[in-house]
């Protein structure tokens, strides 16, 4: 599934970030393909807020659509 379909409180593992620039930006914040994040908040029609350890990032909805994630049960 893609990140924009995530629900609040879910733990997710990042599968693929297709855009190279976004990938480089994400890597600097500690988010790489394979890292585990928590979906903290979804602003309706707006950004998805994710957290990895103490780092919170708001990701625009269109960008979130292009990030592939898997749900961790």
């Amino acid at each position: 599934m893609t990140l924009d379909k995530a629900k609040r409180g879910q733990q997710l593992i990042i599968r693929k970030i297709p855009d190279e620039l976004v990938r480089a930006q994400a890597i600097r914040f500690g988010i790489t393909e394979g890292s585990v994040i928590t979906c903290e908040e979804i602003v309706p029609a707006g950004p998805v807020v994710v957290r990895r350890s103490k780092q919170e990032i708001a990701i625009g909805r269109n960008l979130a659509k292009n990030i592939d994630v898997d749900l961790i049960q």
Partner: protein
Amino acid sequence: MHNSTCHCGNVYNVAITGNPNVGKSVIFNYFTNMYTDVSNYPGTTIDVICGRCGAYVFSDVPGIYGLSGFTEEERLARDIILRSDIAVNVVDASHLERDLFLTQHLIDAGIPIIVVLNMMDEAKEQGIYIKIDELEKELGVPVVPAVAVNKNGLDLLLKKLPEAKTGNITPKLQEKVDLNTPSRPEALLIAEGDEDIAGRNSCRPGNYRDELYRLRRKRVNEIVDKVVREITVEASLSAKIGRLMLKPATGIPLLLITLLAIYQLIGVFVAQTVVGYIEEVIMGQYYQPLVRHILSGVVTEDSALWSVLVGQFGLLTMAVTYLFGLLLPLIFGFQLVLSILEDSGYLPRIATLLDRLLIGMGLNGQAVIPLILGFGCVTMATISTRMLGSDREKLIAIFLLAFAVPCSAQMAIITSMIAGLGFFYVLAYGLILFTVMVGAGTLLAKVIPGSSTDLWIDLPPVRLPRLANVLKKTWIKSAEFIKEAAPLFAAGALFLSLLKITGGLTFIENLLVPITVHWLGLPKEAAGGFILGFIRREFGTAGLFTTPMDPVQQFVALITITFFVPCIATAMIIFKERGWKQGAAIWLVIFVLAFIIGGLVAKFIQVINTMPGVSVMPVLAGLALIVLSVVLWVNWKSEGILKT
């Protein structure tokens, strides 16, 4: 302490680097006894604030997450770091995983560094423990723990500066990049695909970014795993407040309450109680009569000199009263609010909450930050549009700032004028301002080809702002305003007095009658205000204040001057950032639009006035609300995320 250029003989250039919001400026201020904040580097020329301390010249570098050059700000920071002898790398102890990426990037580039492990107190509160010896060993550079805001650890840092050195590089790096070259930082950045640096060395950018960034990230994660021990602590109050600010159900009411609180503080307390007392009692009853009394012994009353000094636009009366009686207390109030907003971590959360609205305006949520900073100073905010992701966004943000964002000085006068008129005037004014801003953005988004870049914003922890820092920042910005505005204000007042004495003012007033009287419905004396408005909009607003007008006329005049051309300082920055053609176009469009909007409001009011038994302002506010709904609907449809 002195404010030098960064190149002196026999000194070391020290770049203070780090991620945004980690306390770089606090450390810079401590070493140099100077005051800076993030928005304090001027112009497109690379001229960053520097300060000297002993044999070191420190530069305060904008916050970055890596030596990548993705935005203009990052490119500026990168160039300063490349020109420095050593770097002080400030890291936030509670965000090591994020911050050490830049640290490792600096080490890989072969720059001698010393690491400051800042905010040790916050890390401890969050249950994070760091083995400092281990971290030093892994990185291969000195690490100094600190709590910069309390000045802990900074003297030790200064003592240890000579120990700065190049550290342990990312494993396998040397397989990709030739590290035995005198221009090693450049070699690394070129291999990582930095187009500027490649261009400067006339070679092709490499394509190792992805691979090197992955290796570096892996290395940083390994270090963090080794040196950080974390115990779970209950989510703090600040985390809970941060969450409430983000959810629309609580976030939007919180935002409205914040705005209302700001209005209560500035619009009611400062603008009416404080200014009322200073302006009417201190200035009106004591200062002005005293000046006139003293002067009457020296200067003949009603002579030319008399009216220049103490007449309608008198240097010693009008200029002094407005500057110190009206502007200073109000600007102090606005800057206080902005400092609190900046320091609290609320701004990025507003950006997240309003992202959807701003996408429809051709921007993204991040643009909320320059737009809100514009309510402090439009000139500085125009420079800060460099943080935006695309040229299209910069253009739209710069236009909106110049057009529809009144700076603190102008807001000061507007507030004191409109607050006295009553609640519905304030409401109608606010709604019209917001409608025009969203409308202009939505229209520009449709006209200018391209689409918004996506939001990617770091949400810093919500912090209780430190009173000392907030007050210092507020005081310095207010003092800067007076220093900059006083000579211009005096010159403007003098110019108007001379125009009046020579009869030039009457001539211009008569010339502008079709616009001022027929189109806007104002007294023809209002022309003087608009002349002052060319210098700075708040002078214009103050100038309008000197002409007696009824409430509706005051309202129309305020609306017009709000959207009037930006001040000279802002215009210069716009010309610098956008070139003279685009700059001139922006300026002229704004000039024309201001009168169109003012006139339309005047005509609407005339029409409403003809309806029997209707009070004007509530109806006007209602009308604005209807237009706003239409604009928001268009905004929502324009790039409807939900459509796909």
